[in-house]
């Protein structure tokens, strides 16, 4: 008897869930559709955030590298090691995988990137721990980027 009641309850809740789900489907989504994963060329993805365009000089700015290394040590090394995977991925060789804009947006705007950016969304599946916002300034993030340019495989 009890079993019967449970199965009836189950069916009712199932119907409820289905009908609710159906209701959602008929709604027009409020947000614009997310950009498709640019599997073919991730370097074209600039990410989401304040950084729209970064120009990298052919010569590396050593002063900026020093500043960047200092910021990196203070704010990033709890989760990133230069040459090995730790809590998050290793930055070595990152310019082969990501655009400079994407890297800076991930540093400066991780919450939104994790929610919306296809690569960032994919990363959180691999690494579980979401990137923390360490509140770097744009200048600091740019210097960290310059430091990353000096990491050699």
């Amino acid at each position, binding site marked *: 008897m009890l079993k019967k009641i449970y199965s009836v309850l189950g069916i009712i809740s199932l119907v409820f869930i289905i009908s609710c789900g159906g209701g959602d489907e008929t709604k027009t989504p409020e947000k614009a559709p997310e950009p498709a994963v640019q599997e073919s060329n991730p370097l074209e993805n600039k990410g989401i955030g304040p950084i729209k365009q970064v120009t990298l000089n052919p010569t590396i700015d050593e002063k900026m590298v020093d500043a960047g290394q200092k910021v990196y040590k203070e*704010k990033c090394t*709890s989760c990133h090691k230069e040459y090995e995977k730790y809590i998050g991925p290793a930055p070595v060789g990152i310019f082969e995988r990501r655009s400079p804009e994407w890297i800076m947006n991930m540093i400066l705007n991780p919450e939104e990137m994790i929610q919306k950016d296809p690569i960032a969304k994919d990363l959180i599946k691999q690494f579980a*721990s979401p990137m*923390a916002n*360490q509140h770097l300034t744009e200048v600091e993030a740019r210097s960290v980027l310059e430091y990353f340019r000096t990491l050699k495989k």
Partner: protein
Amino acid sequence: MFNRLLLVLIFATILFGCSKNESGNGGAMASGDAAQKVYVAPGSYDEFYAFMSGGFSGQVSVYGLPSGRLFKVIPVFSVDAEKGYGFNEETKPMLETSFGFVPWDDAHHPKLSQTDGIPDGRWLFINGNNTPRIARVDLSLFETVEIIEIPNSAGNHSSPYLTENTEYVVAGTRFSVPFPQKDVPLADTKFDGTLTYIKVSKEGKMEIAFQILVPGFDYDLAHSGKGKSHGWTFFTCYNTEQKNSLKEVNASQNDKDFIAAVNWKKAEEFVKQGKAKNYPVSYKHNWIDENSQIAKSEEIKSVKVLSPADCPGLIYYLPTPKSPHGVDVDPTGEYIVGAGKLSADMAVHSFDKLLKAIENKDFEKVIDGIPVVKFEKVVAGMVTKTGLGPLHTEFDGNGYAYTSFFITSEIVKWKLGTWEVVDRIPCYYSIGHLMIPGGDSRKPWGKYVLALNKITKDRYLPTGPELTQSAQLIDISGDKMKLLLDFPTIGEPHYAQALPADLIKPKSKQFFKINENTHPYKTATENETKVVRQGDVVRVYMTMIRSHFAPDNIEGIQVGDKVYFHVTNLEQDFDVPHGFGILGATNAELLIMPGQTETFYWEPKKVGIYPFYCSDFCSALHQEMQGYVRVSDKGSNVPVKWWVGEQAKK
């Protein structure tokens, strides 16, 4: 079908009946209209911050108005295991006194710092009554950053009631005792009282400037003058009979007691002239260093004391009926309202008349060098046909005063100048203080009055013998007061203060910058984490970030060691504190804000494996944020080792 119709009809009748009751109850019951006025939609902000004393909880609670939502309990005079306040090594010195570490007090009157007589949102001061102290809360942090003990004092009730530009906070003795303390018979001995002025620096730091030695009456409440009366402070006192026993009867004999009017600008001159005597004392001054976030406790051994007999013009007594409690100064600074709690009528004194009476020497007598001004020469008017047991008055800035009446449990609205009563509203039950946003300042924001009630009896679901105390929000924007909302409070709400949220919200600190952290045991990066043994003292330099500790495995700790975990939260983001707790520890958790270092003291007593973990939910991997300490026997040869991750460090 018919049955159902009948039910609907019955239900409608009940509803209708209810709404009829509301209108018939003089606005005593909140209506649907009231619900709209206090509704702050999810995700929206309140208009006012309200800071309410926790009374015997020793703390301050922060509420939003008009919603009555509780945001935070700020630990002030009592230890708070939730925040580690008084348990971690950094905050323990905050509760040091000349009597040793005191984990509790009775917090009474929150007062917001003012500029030009208007609350400015920098700090909140509050007095501790039992072990006389004044605390300062920094309103960018919502944390207690300073506590100063008051020497030559007992029962610090008439406090902190600061001056118009936060030049001083004040303290007065509700309990008189001998100064200096000595062993004397209780029967028929008359003790001493003091009124203390504590200078507040531009940065907020407190320093006792001087004390005034006064007859040992019970100095109950105070308010400093404003506008024309800036430069003066008014203290009520009762027990002018100076009885030491059965005060309930014996302290209520005189028809009039006093309001003491202190000319503190004159006092400054007397101190400059060298009229003050240095008294040997011992008291503690504790404050938190802004950058290291470590409290220091300093002993101070001398205080300057002025005697009225040596300082003509320093202080006067204004006769006031009968055992006056609150003394409240209207926004213009002219009227000084003395709420004689055992009198049927309330006396309102005039500041202009006081100056004139002093000029004409209209004195009836002199007590210990303090002239008593003739009552009829200082009183501006009497508020009659009020209620019973007047306690406190606040102002709306539109010419009206609102007085709480404890015995008749109501707020009475009356007009300044004509003294006529224009409205009254019952409170549930036994109101003590009342509060209008900015209601004791030069420019009240008005809009609401908050009743702070001592007794709730049948207002809420019962919770055993101890019931909540409460606040009641009342709309004062119209001619008639209208009850809007009841909400429970922490401990006993004595006084409260409120100000527009915009004066604080933009300044609210989001996290401590790790680069500015000067804690001597800070660990700036995970690479610098270490465990250092010196004899039986072991210091663990630990970091935390979502969601791991470094190190999270520690070996080489021995039974009887004195272990200090110096834990630095490396997060640099808003709203990411981490906690720290360890199995069997006899203190409390750490709750470490981003960029802060806090220290947890631990003496392991038994061998074993001791897990530690983060107690404040921080991320999806919060449950994984844990580690182990291996505790070996005393003298064991297990070396000190620590690591995080698979690779063991040296």
